[in-house]
């Protein structure tokens, strides 16, 4: 871990970076913002931990807990909303048995997230499965895709 953090720190110093870029690098590397990493940067840069968390909790891009192996993002833009994205989310949560106050399965296999809008409204409703955009989603298609994901394809 130390090595990775050093690299991010060097990047930060070379590219007139800021706290956001550090957090973005952490998120990119670990898939979330590990507490130890924040503490490490806080010490090295002499910036209070609260400044990091103030920013990390402000922006939707940052996650404070590890996410699932498979990340399924449901677009909650207007076009997707009127074409039934809410039902897709509800079905996913039931299917994966994720309680309402959480978004990741206990075995860390799946995370279901919402995104405000991915700007692919022409093919709404849209779901992103592990970074792959899938348009004109139906419950049927979604369940078939889930089966495939579960089988590890």
């Amino acid at each position, binding site marked *: 871990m130390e090595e990775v953090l050093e690299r991010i720190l060097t990047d930060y110093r070379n590219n007139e970076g800021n706290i956001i870029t550090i957090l*973005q690098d952490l998120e990119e590397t670990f898939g979330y913002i590990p507490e130890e990493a924040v503490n490490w940067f806080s010490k090295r840069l002499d910036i209070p931990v609260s400044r990091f968390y103030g920013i990390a909790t402000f922006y939707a891009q940052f996650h404070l807990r590890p996410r699932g192996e498979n990340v399924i993002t449901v677009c909650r833009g207007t076009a997707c909303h*009127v074409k039934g994205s809410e039902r897709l989310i509800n079905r996913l949560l039931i299917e994966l048995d994720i309680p309402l106050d959480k978004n990741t399965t206990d075995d860390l296999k799946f995370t279901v997230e919402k995104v405000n809008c991915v700007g692919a*409204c022409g093919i709404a409703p849209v779901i992103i499965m592990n970074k792959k955009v899938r348009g004109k989603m139906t419950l049927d298609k979604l369940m078939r895709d889930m089966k495939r994901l579960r089988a590890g394809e």
Partner: protein
Amino acid sequence: MNKDIIIKVCTGTGGVATGGKEVLSSFKNALSSAAMEAAFYEKCSIHKVGCRGFCAKDVLVDIIINGEKTTYKYIKPDMVERIVNEHIMMGNPVKEWIVGDEFYNFHGKQTKVVLSNCGVIDPEDINAYIAVGGYEATRKVFTSMSPEETIGVIKNSGLRGRGGAGFPTGLKWEICRRKQSEQKYIICNADEGDPGAFMDRSVIEGNPHSVIEGMIIGAYAIGADKGYVYIRAEYPLAVDRLKKVLDQAKQHGFIGNNILGTEFNFDVKIKLGAGAFVCGEETALIASIEGKRGMPRARPPFPVESGLWGGPTVINNVETLANVPYIITRGAAWFSSFGTEKSKGTKVFALTGKVKNTGLIEVPLGITLREIIYDIGGGIEGDRTFKAVQTGGPSGGCIPAKFLDLEVDYESLAQVGSIMGSGGMVALDETDCMVNTAKFFLEFTQAESCGKCTPCRVGTKRMLEILDRITSGKGREGDIELLEELGQDVKTSSLCGLGMTAPNPVLSTIRYFRDEYEAHIKDKKCPAAVCKDLIIYSILKELCTGCGVCKRECPAGAITGRRKKIHKIAPELCVKCGTCFDVCKFKAISKA
């Protein structure tokens, strides 16, 4: 036989999601077989192009043989072979896959300026952009125009900010120009956060060089030597293309030191947004670039006076900047020949929702909503009844059917309680609940409120609570009036644009669809059968065939019944997900 064969495959976000890359490589494979290569190699070229607007029919493929263009729709990789064999080799287009009238109707009433080269050129190739006149405007201003003259042209064109507020672009540049400072900045605002809008993404994906060229000209006009593009991280393809074209522009000497042999230096950096809607507000955007929480501050001072790191800063929207090169090359008079008296030029809209032809459109300002919804959009899906069009995203409002003949410009939309906004246009039909729509937007603004000022932080929360209880059947007498009062207060006392406009979706739906609010509160009914707590699913005895599909698909196990016998839904188990309603082929599920 001397053929010129050009193949163009859509690889915008819509195109890629429906398999554009696979179609592209299928064409490459099909044409690289030995026999094909011998016959066609010299004459055939395959291009990826950006968004061409008509995303509903993706993947769209153009085959141009000797200048004669054929456009195919819904192309999948396994269809490529037949197109190659029949059309490219034999010259017989595959008739049943060609786009129909809707494609031409979709484009008929459009006037393309910003989008004129989107979907036509390869977005990742600077030479393709130069071939259609790209960077001519840059040459023109650097060799023959002073910054003041450049500003004059933009002022005369009447171009107004396309991000939503509609501030005259030339004036903004002029104020910044006059400000004395060592260091000035120009920022391209590509933080397109409105849900239901994708104009800026498409422009960047389809013709990123035009945006960069607009920035170069803007920087020259105001005297800035540093620029930033602040773009959403949710747009990976657009970010990727921007990075590529910036490198190309540097290699060609349009960005860097001593541009085109002048004293002028200009460098552009890309900053990725981290997912906060409020960062589209200019002072919040600046805070975010500086690496802080993206919270707005009071204005004045405006960014043109004191912006990024205290330097005078011009912030322009993507579409605004993309207009600039065209205005410089073709002149202010040409640009202002489009549009209405106060709103000149064209505007790009993301037309989505319940229209048949969803996609990206560019129309002259002053066009009527009817022309957009019916002529371009092809009317409502399933020939249901058009109810309203939502413009301006969470800052805008719902415009009801009675205003279909309204001419679209900044002023007219404001008059009916909505805004132009950045260009999202979502068509709603009779199956959409207006209270639910208002709640949807308020959920969004409430979640995105940065929390700095009380009216927005607390006001949106309280409004959402009221809407929540109305849609769950617990609405009270007086709730509508309370929403109106609270909405006005939030509008007048919030710090930034987010709060000042957040009540618009609620206020405009109350204004035009008060009866729907009353039905929810007084009769505990959702007329459009959308609000979950106010509807009950049941099986219609006379239509149920006992096929068992609903029983099998129901995630809650709420449906019982023997095969070939009428089934039943247990209301206490039903989670109202609507799966049964969707899967029943016999329309035997009722929702009321």
